[in-house]
């Protein structure tokens, strides 16, 4: 536990530093509720990915294209990789042109705790996405969201 806390402190210190300004923010058990508050009354897309997930890469490329078209797309990206993987996550985001997206990364050594805070039913399969409507009713999707599916969802959003 002490080691975990130390790691977390180090992680927070690093993420707060100016050189890490665009590093993913730490995703904790409190983050899902914080996101609901931030997007109160608005739809948003919460998408989980990993540097270890081949199927996530194509989906992320699609998100990058969409973000170029619609910079205000309410899209939250969360890497489920362990805190120690921060450099690899940041490098992958940079390659995909997604460094400026709303990026988060799992900040706990026990991913099951964070998954539980998001959705008790989610067993960790990736990619995993949640499409929230304005009332925050959500649709869970396992597997890559096609660009077409995201565009269909976008059409249901108010401009």
């Amino acid at each position, binding site marked *: 536990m002490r080691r975990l806390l130390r*790691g977390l402190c180090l992680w927070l210190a690093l993420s707060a530093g100016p050189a890490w300004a665009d590093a993913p923010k730490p995703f904790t058990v409190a983050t899902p509720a914080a996101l609901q508050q931030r997007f109160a009354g608005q739809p948003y897309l919460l998408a989980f990915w990993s*540097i*270890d*997930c*081949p*199927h*996530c890469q194509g989906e992320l490329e699609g998100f990058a294209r969409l973000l170029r078209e619609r910079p205000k797309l309410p899209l939250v990206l969360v890497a489920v990789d*362990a805190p*120690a*993987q921060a450099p*690899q996550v940041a*490098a*992958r985001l940079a*390659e995909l042109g997604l460094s400026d997206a709303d990026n988060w990364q799992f900040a706990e*050594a*026990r991913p*099951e*705790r964070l*998954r*539980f805070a998001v959705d*008790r*039913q*989610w*067993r*960790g*399969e*990736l*990619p*995993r996405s949640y499409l929230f409507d304005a009332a925050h009713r959500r649709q869970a999707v*396992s*597997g*890559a969201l*096609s660009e077409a599916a995201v565009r269909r969802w976008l059409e249901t959003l108010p401009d």
Partner: protein
Amino acid sequence: MVRIFWAALLLGLAGAGLAQDMPAARHDMAAKWLARQAVARPLALAASFDAKGRLWAAWVEGGQLRVARSEDGRHFTWPVIVNALPETIAAEGESRPQLAVSGDGTLHLVWSIALAKPYTGHVRYSRSTDGGRSFSAPITLNDDSAEISHRFPALLVEGRRVLVAWLDARERQAAQAAGEKFAGASLYLAESGDGGASFGPNRRFVAHSCECCRLALAWRQGAPMALWRQVFDGGVRDFALADLRDPASLQRASDDDWRIDGCPHHGGGLAADDQGRLHLVWFTQGRLRQGLFYRHADPGRFSPPMKFGNDAAQAGHPAVLATGRNVTLAWLEFDGQTNQVWTLHSRDRGRHWGPPRRLATSAGGVDYPILLARAGKPWLVWHSEREGLRAWALTP
């Protein structure tokens, strides 16, 4: 003190690996493994009882596979190192070293090592013919050396027969080079008839397996049987069952209709009882059913799927064991605070089941539960961060 020493050595290794490889490849998976394992010792391990009822365990520390033995399931001998030269050994979730002990006491180990390119690896093998005092120099079992995926090995041993199956990207690579699409990976085999002294050529068993779910193997009255997640038409990732001697024996083992453009990282479990009935467990989020399921299979007939586990507690990673007429299921749940191992028992070859029982909990990180037979009785082995390795004799 010993732990500090290893941590220091590991950090040194990881640092060296990163420094060396950073400029060349931005995501060097080999360096990534070392860095990850430097932070936390992987929890994923392999375990097996030998014919004398002694428990053997194999785990990874500092890129080295270590093997130790226990007479009582609690106290272990000083570990023996399998690979003198550290390797980037995969030891996480579905991808972990495998250990089997044949009747004559020979120890067999397979594992996969991560290569620099993401999602690639080689399958490695080593054995001990002197009761675990020393191990043969590891060899690579996949007979192509391409930097592609040869990963998720599984091991099946009986007498002098040693069968290794793994997920292989050769066909996928060839298809992609020809500009074609290829769903999933392929299931490949290597077999030894001389107790692991030598292996025959690699054999491609079937194309379009899921690319990152563990394989489950079991002997059914001398026939090597396999259960794995297969990519069926339309990208449906349900389970397939086959006799590994004959690709034409492949049959669909679950019809959950899980269409997923992704990898569940969640394979199944397989056991055979001594009358030749197969017992299957698996996870799905298909259109037709969701959660953990059990069914048994006699030639030409499957029982209807039986659901178990609590979906609201992430019930997952099931295991199955058959001992005589007894069938035992075990799986993992998480209640928001603690990880828990649950079990279910049947005394009549899977027809009737007792109530689910919570066997153990842990408030830290955990490995999957492992079911093993010891002198015809069911045992459960569970490795957790806080409690270490624990073993229980189960009462059916």
